[in-house]
């Protein structure tokens, strides 16, 4: 009964956001637009450099694969944050928090919506990569699943932390949703190996799960091996990130409950 009730409430949240997405073509287009345009840009960089680059000759999908994987992280994070922001934009938080919806059910709803948004956005870019450049992300094989899982979990952790920040400091902090994930970009080694970073930045990179994912991607494409050690390290760090993201978000909800912010939050 309790499990059924939780499932029902999570489904209610998903329906609420699905109604919103499905009736708004600009929202759907914007989800696919950025990943597709970025993918096209990196595909042309590949076309340009490939005749003079040995590693691109060996692994022509290196940049396109990297940009598509990066967008899993970015869309995953945005999906969590924007699902929460929609409730603030519509001044609906008060109704949600006086309903039987529990905080963990809200979190699960945000994660499911993030997954859907990511699949729509990155999925569209993958289709265009195939249609325009004959590149298939599935050429990564089964390791793609390991990369996807790690990237989306990292995105969720950041998305929950950003939701907590916005709950604590209001929609003025909304810009963080768009900027937060890019803090990780230089140390993730999306387009270059971690070893090119200065020593001190390599130390930072080793604390970031995405650096293991992109090293792993290069191992698959250039050495044709799946580095399970990198996968395990990424998962371990992600477990810490996710726990921290959830804890921060729950603390922010507690803070908002204590300071009477849930009823007033809105545009």
């Amino acid at each position, binding site marked *: 009964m309790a499990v059924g*009730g939780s499932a*029902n*409430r999570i*489904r*209610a*949240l998903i*329906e*609420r956001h699905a*109604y*919103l997405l499905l*009736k*708004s073509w600009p929202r759907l287009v914007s989800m696919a637009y950025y990943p597709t345009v970025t993918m096209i840009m990196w595909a042309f960089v590949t076309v340009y450099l490939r005749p003079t680059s040995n590693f691109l000759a060996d692994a022509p999908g290196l940049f396109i694969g990297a940009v598509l994987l990066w967008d899993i992280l970015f869309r995953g994070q945005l999906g969590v944050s924007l699902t929460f922001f*929609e*409730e603030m934009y*519509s*001044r*609906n938080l*008060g*109704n*949600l*928090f*006086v*309903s*039987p*919806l*529990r905080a963990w059910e809200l979190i699960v709803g945000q994660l499911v919506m993030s997954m859907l948004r990511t699949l729509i956005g990155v999925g569209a870019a993958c289709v265009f990569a195939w249609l325009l450049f004959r590149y298939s992300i599935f050429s990564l094989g089964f390791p793609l699943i390991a990369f996807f899982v790690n990237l989306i979990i990292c995105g969720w952790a950041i998305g929950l932390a950003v939701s907590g920040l916005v709950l604590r400091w209001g929609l003025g902090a909304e810009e963080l949703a768009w900027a937060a994930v890019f803090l990780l970009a230089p140390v993730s080694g999306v387009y270059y190996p971690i070893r090119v970073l200065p020593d001190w930045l390599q130390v930072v990179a080793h604390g970031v799960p995405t650096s293991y994912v992109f090293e792993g991607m290069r191992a698959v494409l250039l050495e044709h091996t799946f580095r399970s050690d990198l996968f395990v390290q990424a998962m371990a760090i992600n477990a810490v990130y996710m726990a921290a993201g959830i804890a921060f978000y729950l603390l922010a909800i*507690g803070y908002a*409950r*204590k*300071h*009477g912010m*849930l*009823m007033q939050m*809105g545009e």
Partner: protein
Amino acid sequence: MPPASAPQLPAVIEVRDLHKKFKQVDAVNGISFDVHHGTTTALLGGNGAGKTTTLSMLLGILTPSSGSIRILGEDMLRHRYRVLPRINFTSPYVDLPKRLTVAENLRVYARLYGVPSPRERIGELSLDLDLGELLNRPYGNLSAGQRTRVSLGKALLNRPEVLLLDEPTASLDPDVGDRMRTLLEQYQKRSGCTMLLASHNMGEVERMCNDVIMLRAGIVVDRGSPQALLARYGRENMDDVFLDIARERNTPDHGVSADGHAEGIVS
């Protein structure tokens, strides 16, 4: 005017020594009161008196600084998720998602509250509240009065045993306001629902309420049935009683007991 609440009815809402302090401001300063089964109690007071703060704490959306709240026999601070499915709330200051239609909003909230046969329930409410023509319109396109009706529909979806109403007929024209009051009275008669309402409409209070709790600066300054208050202050309508209390004039000599009942003699 309804009869004064009978003290022998069981208390459905029990508030004891409730405090809420925001930084240096005592928004609610040690209030205690009971609301009895099947009755309607008004929470009155000027702006900043502590009405919305009190309602928010009763709903579990604001954490008290100290004190206790029991609703339907459950401790709200420890077991609010046992209570929330059995109560509901409406306020003109909290919105529903604007881009969703009225029907979509009601379906989402029916699912959140675990309403059995939501389609039938929404059908009943659309007849009662005259929502038929609004069901397929986006909530954001409705007038303030129409939104109030929809919010009331949301509040009645789960057939609540306790209904907390923050200015339930604000923004409604006299005709629609009167229909809403009649609907609430009929719902109470059918279901035995207990209602606590914050209102600035003294006619509404005289008509609907068995009991009135007067707040000023976060404390209960008087309490009684509308008839008793009119007699005590020697007034003919509740507007004048409200002004007497808010402006601290013509104050009778009496005290208020721990459960919020006024004691003493009319001056």
